[in-house]
């Protein structure tokens, strides 16, 4: 019989370890915000092979942590460090520019093992640092107002050795807010990344923003939101403090606008967007006349009754 053949084939085509690792990585990387540990537990149980699991975990946790901009508490009560590509000094080392410390992290456990002071070459010049720290102070004020549980950081990603006006440099603002409430079957995260390029020649600052929101509700079901938006803006180069104020105003404006557009999308959902999938009521605005269908020439009757002829 064919079914036996299939069983036979399946047992013959055993997956190689590399294939298993690839599959395990796919599951780990597709974990919703804040849920990679739960996914890891299930993946581990399914694989039943510690070596394969370990390899997959080692390869996927770092990218997951960085793309989800996860926040790890520093051991010496000096705050949090964000895991991002911008703060990455080495595979397991992440810079916290605010405290000029480098956190050495365990990606899979998502904890900080130890901290060390940042080396001089890891930090920006005094000139750039003035812009960076002014920006940091302003963005912290904004984040504490706008996000009940937001974490933010400002990195210098280009031109960190620039020591005087006359050269270009780039700052990146990262904002990450996550909420995990498994007891309410709900998790979510807000991530925004703002690239801020100071262009000396044209005396302007170019701003590029990327905001990403995810939410997962899973009480007796599985429903997920995945929303993204990109935007651009510009302003003039000013003193560090004035630049920080106008840049944070730009960020606040775009983020507030994006949130409002998300709310509008949600409001439009029930009566417009969702309607293209399935209407609440039939085109006839009355429940379907099932009681009439038992008649002999049923389709014709219904068509006549509803006047929709086909």
């Amino acid at each position, binding site marked *: 019989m064919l079914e036996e053949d299939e069983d036979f084939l399946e*047992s013959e085509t055993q997956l190689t370890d590399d*294939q298993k690792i690839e599959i395990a990585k796919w599951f780990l990387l*597709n974990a919703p915000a804040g849920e990679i540990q739960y996914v890891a537990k299930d993946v581990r149980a399914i694989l039943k092979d510690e070596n394969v699991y370990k390899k997959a975990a080692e390869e996927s946790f770092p990218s997951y942590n960085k793309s989800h901009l996860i926040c790890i508490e520093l051991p010496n009560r000096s705050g949090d460090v964000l895991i991002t590509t911008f703060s990455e000094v080495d595979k397991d080392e992440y810079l916290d520019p605010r405290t000029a410390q480098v956190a050495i992290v365990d990606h899979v456990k998502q904890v900080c093992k130890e901290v060390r002071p940042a080396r001089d070459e890891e930090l920006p010049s005094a000139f750039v640092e003035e812009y960076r720290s002014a920006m940091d102070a302003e963005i912290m004020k904004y984040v504490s107002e706008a996000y009940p549980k937001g974490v933010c950081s400002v990195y210098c990603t280009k031109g960190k050795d620039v020591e005087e006006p006359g050269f270009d440099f780039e700052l990146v603002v990262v904002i990450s*807010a996550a909420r995990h409430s498994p007891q309410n079957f709900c998790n979510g995260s*807000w991530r925004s990344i703002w690239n801020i390029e100071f262009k000396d020649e044209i005396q302007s600052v170019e701003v590029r923003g990327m905001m990403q929101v995810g939410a997962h509700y899973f009480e*007796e079901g599985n429903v997920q939101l995945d929303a993204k938006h990109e935007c651009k803006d510009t302003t003039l180069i000013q003193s560090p403090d004035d630049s920080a104020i106008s840049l944070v105003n730009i960020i606040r404006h775009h983020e507030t606008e994006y949130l*409002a557009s998300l709310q509008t999308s949600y409001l439009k959902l*029930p009566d417009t967007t969702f309607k293209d999938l399935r209407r609440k009521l039939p085109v006839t605005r009355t429940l379907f006349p099932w009681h009439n269908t038992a008649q002999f020439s049923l*389709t014709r009757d219904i068509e006549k009754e509803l006047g*929709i002829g086909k």
Partner: protein
Amino acid sequence: MEAAMGLMRRIPPKHTETALSALLSLLPEHSSDLLSQVDQPLQVLCDMVSGKEFILCEYNRDADSYRSPWSNMYHPPLEDAPQPSPELRKLEVEANEVFAIYRDQYYEGGISSVYMWEDENEGFVACFLIKKDGSKTGHGRRGYLEEGAWDAIHVIEVGPEEEEIVHYCLTSTVMLTLTTDNESSGSLNLSGSIRRQMSMKLSVSEGHLCNMGKMIEEMEGKLRNSLDQVYFGKTNEMVCTLRPPAELVQMKLPDT
């Protein structure tokens, strides 16, 4: 198996197909459990005799062929393949006709198929399927959706008749994904899948089709409503928890 179902509750519903095939390759020994417990987006084939499209599922499959409800032929052709009894086939034909009208009224497009087969204990099982592409390039009348798919699977176990009363047990699953995309608000994707059950004891005086149809209509209404109000609502609530809308912030911080 428990871990596999755990993963299916977490992986984004739009990736269900990939997740399922990954699990099948990791757990070949659980393939029949996985296939029966994990619902996947419906596939469609064109009936070569009638020219109409029909939906594929486990219930009209034998080996690698699928029976079309329109011509009752297997695609690709298959000899000695199972068929419902003539009596049940009659009900199946009727159900397909009526359900297509129902589908058109609620979905303004889409594809539907109904399959029936006898089960071991004198009753029968019916499976009502609907697939709708609501994107603006598909059957989306209003053109709001970049991408929009709705798959509904209703399986009804119909018990034997006892003193004109029949027990119906309906298990329904809806899977959907919708994406809107525009310059000012970026891309927004909501995807989800929920499954619910409903049992009823009904008199057969109105006929099986009427009883099953009413149950399905009620269930679809409930599922649509809970997706729209409860599930999507919860994700919106989460967004507002992460970054409360400005009015709320101003209420809390009157000085700023």
